[in-house]
């Protein structure tokens, strides 16, 4: 499994989100150029899993027009890994994660 998510982007729209599984996992929101804007997860308390989380974002997508998901039962560690990999490459968190004031100290990753 690659560290960063490499799946193709899908449109962030009702039709696409309706097809998503209601499982735990991680997801990314991106803009039209494929830049990652937000990294999130659907955890054990999420009522409708990945589908539920992306439906929530449909209500207020901001600049996000694309999405991609990864079904993963180890959603919390995968979420941390994606944030660390993004920070390693870009020097900080994705813009929408920063907006949500996620101040928890994160680990440092230096992928080879």
């Amino acid at each position, binding site marked *: 499994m690659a*560290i960063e998510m490499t799946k193709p982007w899908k449109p962030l729209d009702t039709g696409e989100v309706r097809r998503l599984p209601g499982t735990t996992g991680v997801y990314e929101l991106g803009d039209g150029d494929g830049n990652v804007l937000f990294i999130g997860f659907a*955890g*054990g*308390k999420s009522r409708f899993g990945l589908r539920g989380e992306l439906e929530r974002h449909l209500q207020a997508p901001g600049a996000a027009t694309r999405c991609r998901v990864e079904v993963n039962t*180890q*959603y*919390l*560690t*995968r979420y*941390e*890994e994606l944030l*660390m990999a993004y920070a390693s490459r870009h020097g900080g968190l994705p813009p929408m994660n920063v907006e949500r004031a996620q101040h928890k*100290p*994160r*680990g*440092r*990753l*230096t*992928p*080879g």
Partner: protein
Amino acid sequence: MDLELSDEQRLIVDTVRRFVREEVLPLEADLDPDASELEPEDRDRLIKMVREMGFYGLDIPPEYGGPDVDIVTRTLMAIEMAQHRAGLYAPCYGVFGGAGLAQLFEANEDQKQRYLYPTLRGEKHGFFGLTEPSGGSDPARAIQTTAVKDGDDWVLNGSKIFISGADRADYGIVFARTDASRGRAGITCFFVDTDAPGFYVRRVVHTLRSTHYATELQFEDLHVPVANVLGEVNGGFAIANDRLSRQRIPYSAGCIGVAVKAQEMAIAYANQRETFGDRLATRQAIQWMIVDNEIDIRTSRWLTLAAADRADRGQPFRTEAAMAKVVASEAGGRVVDRAMQIHGGYGMTKDLPLERWYREIRIRRIGEGPTEVQRLIMARDLLGGSFH
């Protein structure tokens, strides 16, 4: 031989039990079922309470500010502290504090100033770097990371795997081979600063554990000053070995705590759930699972307390600690499995803590020395020396 708890031990156990049930358990209702951390304000509030109780930093020697609690009592407390969803690997979400790395107390004064005291003050965090891709059960032979003297520095090259917390640590205690011809007598222990050039956290290693990941490290011409040798050159294996023996007692206590809670849940559920017109508790199949759980729990508990008692008395306890670890980790897995079976479909859900304990307790048969290595240690002790 008095097997009863003293009045003081009984009071301490009751206090910790109430703390877990009244302060920790209610917070878990609002946490992700796989969470291992509290919200900062809750964590700080509980730490304050633990300090006021006089229990903060249980494994810190009294001369460094820790409470003077003997190992048997600490084991009894550890059994209580594990009795919640995250309790196996994050007992009470870390609010009881601790030294983390016991080897720090063996450092010289200069090293204590740079690493131990900042760690005790919460200003620095360290990691323990022993296991390598070439092996972990047999570190004395498997360590291939090299350290070569170069002027006033040692230069490290190699890699480590399954290392907890290295991505967030300020320093680590790292074991490297300084003499290739001497096997276990050719390993040295170093303090390594994580901001030093040549230190890399290459990847996260996802495991069965819910929120905690391990890491894979790489050292490329990592320069470490001679002042960062912990203990003696070529004397590192003794440091690693001592830590592994001591850790087995609290490690076992965690398994027992989870098993106790799983049994409590199983008994409550069996007394309440009805099938075919009567409670599960009336079915012999369920009764025998409950009984087998109790046998497993009590066996584990007495073996672990016996190991702790020998450690308190300053007697050799390597065999006892190894035995406690084998029994508690394997018995704990059986108890959780039976409790899941008794709960039926609900036992599989994230609504209950059982599925998390089921995954996480499996690791206990491998971490801190696999069951097979513990048996090796005991066989060597039993066949090579006296039984008493």
